[in-house]
């Protein structure tokens, strides 16, 4: 169905980050938002993306915000870095989602919602690390990769799933040795994300049971946050609720805290 060679070919063909975004990211990492904004200003697509993103209801601004400098100022260093990664990811979204019943508009809504909820979670956990802040941006890459790899085998997977409740992530792991989170982490590597961020993305699958300390806690929160979002009506209809396996035991001990930070549906 899907061979390791096909997976390697897909990853090899992921385009590198545009130089303008790379530069803007570097300035953001250094904490220089003025230079980052100046850089971002040069890319019209990035400008439009930023404007559309921060004016989504979840950001709660009363008046439209359109100036890139102003946007970066409002977001702050960590969220700017995260948003630039979100933009990079948006460049990989397909023109038409074939596997999932999803629109790009819904995908961007999901990105925005994950980012905002992650911010609340890190606030609750008293974590201010910029790299950890950015990790959430790469999680929706799992959806893009899954759509790209499985679009042509949708019928076959449906037949498989008619007899066994297998998710795409498990199927991919068993056929190719890598799961969707490993592939998202590989994309992160190509975009010069830190080792810490990449390790966190990998562990968000909830299948790594040897995690310890902060990495385990963060992986648990990302995993549960994912399923909170995937349980939203629009994403259930899109088929996102079924594409990875929810490791309920993995998140059991943080559920009570989670429901304090984020009210259930």
């Amino acid at each position, binding site marked *: 169905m*899907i061979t390791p060679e096909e997976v390697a070919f897909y990853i090899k063909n992921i385009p590198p980050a545009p130089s303008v975004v790379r530069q803007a990211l570097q300035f953001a990492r250094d904490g220089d938002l003025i230079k980052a904004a100046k850089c971002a200003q040069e890319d019209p697509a990035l400008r439009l993306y930023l404007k559309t993103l921060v004016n989504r209801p979840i950001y709660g601004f009363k008046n439209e915000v359109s100036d890139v400098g102003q946007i970066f100022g409002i977001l702050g260093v960590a969220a700017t870095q995260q948003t630039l990664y979100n933009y990079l990811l948006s460049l990989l979204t397909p023109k038409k989602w074939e596997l999932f019943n999803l629109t790009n508009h819904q995908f961007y809504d999901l990105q925005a919602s994950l980012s905002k909820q992650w911010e609340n979670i890190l606030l609750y956990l008293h974590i201010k690390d910029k790299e950890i802040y950015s990790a959430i941006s790469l999680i929706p890459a799992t959806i893009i990769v899954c759509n790209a790899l499985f679009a042509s085998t949708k019928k076959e997977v449906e037949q498989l799933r008619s007899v066994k409740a297998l998710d795409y992530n498990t199927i991919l792991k068993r056929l190719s040795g890598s799961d969707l989170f490993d592939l998202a982490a590989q994309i992160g590597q190509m975009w010069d994300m830190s080792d810490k961020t990449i390790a966190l993305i990998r562990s968000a699958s909830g299948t790594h049971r040897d995690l310890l300390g902060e990495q385990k806690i963060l992986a648990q929160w990302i995993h549960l946050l994912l399923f909170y979002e995937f349980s939203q009506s629009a994403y*259930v209809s899109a088929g996102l*609720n*079924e594409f990875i396996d929810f490791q309920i035991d993995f998140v059991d001990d943080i559920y009570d805290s989670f429901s304090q930070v984020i009210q259930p*549906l």
Partner: protein
Amino acid sequence: MRATVKGRIGVFHLQGFLDGNNAPSFLTIDDIKATEALHIDMLLVSLKKVIFFNKNGLDVFVKLLTSIRNSKHITVGFCDYDHKKFQTINIFYKDAIDFSLFKSEKIAELFVSTNTSNPKTVLLYNEDPSQRSAMAIELFDYGHNPIIAQSFAEFETKKKTPDLYYAIIEDTQLGYFGQKIATRVTGNAIIYTVSNFLDAEIGNTFNIAYHNNSLNVGFRLFIFDAYKVVSMNIHALNFFTKLASSAAEYNAAICFVGFSFEKTPETFKNDLEDAGIMFFSTMDDILKNKELLQELGGGGGATVKQHRILNKALINELSHFIDATVSTLNMMTNAQATKNSVRIQALTIANPTDQFASSIGFYGDIDGLIILVFPKTIAKKACELLVGEGDVTDEEVLDSLAEFVNIIGGRAKVLLSENKRRLDITLPRTYSEMDTLMEIARNKKGVQVDLSFEGQNFIFFLTR
């Protein structure tokens, strides 16, 4: 979301959070239609991976389950939950629970018909005596051996030795039970348990699809355990007469055991005998009489006098069945199977040791039986996608082989529908011993295709 079907049970596997807002999104109109079209005896919603649910969320599924139960007379309910979730559901629905609750899928499987003889010893407790009895009767009727704890203290004591039981049944309750006539398999005979007064309702409660499946996969002896039957009316008489006629086409025998005609007209007995139905006083009269058992067909397929022969319609579609097999193997393993030879002959297994086999019957515009015989290593490789790598027991491989042939059956169905041929598939059957397979397949002529896969041979056999 589509239900996953294993054996005769369909299960919706929900994940994450479930409330009144998102629950309708799990089920499109197409999903509901597909669920209604399933040939199943039980439809469940698994709560194993649901971390949060409320009553509004459950209500959406209860509505669907109730509607399907009313139209198809099958058992419906929820499964795979812990004690806390069980209590929550009971609080939500208080005394008005009219669906079933099974603590696990494994427990639910004990309450449906299978096509293998596999009686299990289970420990059972429910604080409600009527539930306790109802479950015990159902389990017994399905061929199992329930050990009933009469008190919580007794249950707790017995629970300390879990190895003695296949399953410990607690936090489980039956809603509208007895939706279908209980069925069990003993050797090569199928036993249906009927009770009370038999009337037109038997047409709803008797699982005709299961019965036809059983005929198609080679069962030839059907016994109605009628000890608890008081009497029957003309509608039931007509039903059994028709059943006997259709069984005759397969040279199958239908018997009644323990039916007293005290309150039933003697003419009914004559009519049933004229239709070919036989009557015995006790179950042992058949099951312990080997000679009679052989004659009736319960000793295995070899005793069947008339063999259904291969026909042109089936041969014409051979390529579709082989394509379905090869492409399924390819999908599951990423490796290609190649065809070595095709011959019309009786099933010939060169090396019957270390082999697993599975079969699936099909009926509709054409009918027949697909048998696959694999070396154990190939069987394990073919099922790796379904069970994962690592140490896998023979039982798990056989279970997955059943799923594997089910997929092949599904693919063949799709391929043939392109030629406007309508097909239904039976329950899959697996064999860990080739002797058992040969009881069914011996003397059946068919098309044997020898295929090779990663340097080893396996057999595809198509017959009727």
